[in-house]
């Protein structure tokens, strides 16, 4: 029984991180109609920054300070996003989607190496955050408390995001732009500003995903590329541009993967992609997507 609970936690853990990555990807697409292939690298960037900052502060810092440093990666990723959008992406909005994919693919290659340049070839860890929290007893088993923190952050982020998009003035502007950029623009919305804000929030989410994942695992090269395809699965299942979809998609992927590792390890990965294909066939716009 306790093992079942732990399986569930594992699934939620995986889903939380995936939701942050995929939610950011989806938000950006929803507002800007851009699929950012370098999105996974922003997740990796968040992981590296948090690991690095925590590592720098580790000597003698109070544990509370260390936990406060956790979101550093998210803010760094947001900042990077705020720089990238106006410089690299803006010139492409008027051009065909193919060019956007290509330029973000180039960005992916550049960011991958920049991280290697700044943080070296080795994995970067911040395990002290993971270890200091210890474990929680669940029946006969124990479970890392830190993982529960990650799940809570995932849930909180989902809540905040929902409130932000649906309950604030800015959310209204965001949704208006997403539904019809031209009309929003005609009604006085500064589209450029909305774009940079949306892109920054999306990057913040990816960075947050990386930041909370790094204490339990570590920041390694290539983690962004691997994460991106899974995020794709999530947004394809949930519907590109839909936050609810990203949430449900992340839960589905998290549960299927956890189940897969235990029960059908050979096809665990293939099943994830097949789910995406089936959803696309049955509901091309995804479970929660609007048909364009």
């Amino acid at each position, binding site marked *: 029984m306790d*093992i079942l609970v732990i399986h569930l936690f594992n699934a939620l853990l995986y889903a939380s991180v995936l939701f942050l990555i995929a939610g950011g990807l989806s938000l950006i697409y929803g507002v800007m109609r851009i699929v950012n292939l370098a999105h996974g690298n922003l997740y990796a960037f968040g992981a590296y920054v948090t690991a690095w900052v925590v590592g720098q502060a580790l000597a003698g810092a109070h544990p509370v300070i260390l936990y406060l440093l956790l979101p550093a990666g998210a803010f760094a990723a947001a900042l990077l996003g705020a720089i990238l959008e106006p410089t690299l992406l803006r010139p492409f909005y008027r051009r065909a989607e193919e060019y956007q994919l290509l330029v973000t693919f180039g960005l992916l290659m550049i960011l991958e190496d920049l991280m290697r340049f700044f943080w070296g070839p080795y994995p970067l860890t911040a395990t002290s955050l993971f270890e200091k929290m210890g474990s929680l007893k669940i029946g006969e088993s124990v*479970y*890392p408390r830190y993982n529960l923190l990650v799940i809570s952050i995932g849930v909180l982020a989902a809540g905040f995001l929902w409130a932000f998009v649906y309950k604030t003035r800015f959310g209204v502007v965001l949704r208006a732009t997403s539904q019809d950029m031209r009309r929003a623009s005609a009604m006085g919305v500064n589209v450029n500003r909305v774009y940079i804000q949306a892109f920054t929030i999306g990057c913040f989410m990816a960075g947050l995903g990386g930041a909370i994942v790094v204490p339990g*695992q570590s920041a390694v090269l290539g983690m962004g590329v691997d994460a991106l395809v899974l995020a794709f699965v999530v947004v394809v299942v949930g519907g590109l541009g839909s936050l609810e979809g990203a949430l449900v998609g992340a839960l589905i992927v998290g549960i299927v993967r956890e189940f897969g590792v235990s029960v059908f390890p050979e096809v665990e990965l293939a099943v994830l992609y097949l789910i995406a294909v089936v959803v696309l066939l049955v509901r091309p716009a995804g479970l929660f997507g609007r048909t364009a």
Partner: protein
Amino acid sequence: MPGPVTRRDLLAQLGVTAAATFGASAAGIGFAGVARAQEKPKGTIPDKPFRIGHMTFFTGPGAVLGEPMHKGNLLAADEINAQGGLLGKRKIEVLKADEAAGTDANVKEMRRLKLSEKIDMFMGITSSGNTPALGPAAEELKLLTIFIDGCTDFLFDKAVPNPRYVFRVTNIQSADGSTCALAVAQTWPDVKKVAHIHPDYAYGRNCYDHFSIVSKKLIPRAQNVSEAWPKLFSTDFTSHITKTLAAKPDLLVTSVWGGDYISFYKQALQHGLFDKMKVATTLALGTAPHAIGKDHPEGVLAGVHANYHFSYPPGNRWPLNKTFVEKYKAKFNEYPNFQAEGAYTATHILRTAVEKANKLTGGWPDDDAIISQIEGMMIAGPGGYVYIRPDNHQGYKDAITGFSKNVPEYPFPILDPARIITIPIRNITAPPGWPKGEPTSTYTWIDQTWPTVKQA
């Protein structure tokens, strides 16, 4: 075959010894790394640098194994260059290449190094997924090669069954799983339920196979209750750990290595895995020694790839090891791992072969002359004697494993000096002439020639 054998008999027959005594006559055997008065080489030697292409993991989670390999190569090259180079003339130049580029890219890069950079020799390789691709490529290029690791049996069983240019210095891979299983049989003979977590590629499969066949012979009652195959270089083992815990095994066998192992043990600690079962590893202490923290539990069967740990042979019992560790520490401010030892020994194998060949032929010996000297060479390295078998070009040295222990002298765990386990290599690897088998020759050899013990 005579009547039933007990486990104790079989372990004794196989020479599995705890805290082994050490000592042998070294007459007529070359010494790696000891500065000797340089004999004057015969004939004229060109002073063109000798270029070694060294490919290993310089990036990613594999780098905790790869970097020490490169450093071992550099240390030996420095020693040789300090005496003027090979035969006192040809300084060794080491060109780096990153194994993390992927198997296909590695094949291309090896070709580039030989055909475009004109390297004289190729060294390195960590992953056993790469040697079966690069071995044939090296033979095609007629490129003198000593693989340091990438030790899959498959290389000389199948991929290059009749090697000419390709050698390998660290122990063959089957020895790793077998050593682990023998150590388990000796230490924890009562285990009944065994779980496995192995990286999903050649090495993990090989460890699983050889652990299984040896345990079938020595602990026949042990049953396999769970298998998990995480991707190589993954950092998230949460689901695999949960799967293992759910099966409630007595023993977990794992061959996860490098940065992966570090992530694994940190996560396993928080899941209380080490409290619930015994853990046997093949490569826990095989990474750069400082990579593992003191939070790593003690008493874990901590493999060193059945090759070498810098703390053994201890003290000055085997002076070669003492000087090697001291020099390595002085140069790189860290302790060597088995890869460093392998690359260091391999470089001195090259030096020894070149010197011997020069004595015979004069001038700079051609590859054929060097190869014929490496074939059958027995050389003393820091970890002990290494024998390069002439038929399959594979290096053999006695296997070693032990248990993790924290001692005040080091800021990381080492092998418990009181509980080192050594096994004569010939007792756990298929002999020359044994037919090639599936999955490996050693597997069929164990299966067909070892008795199954009578379990009391």
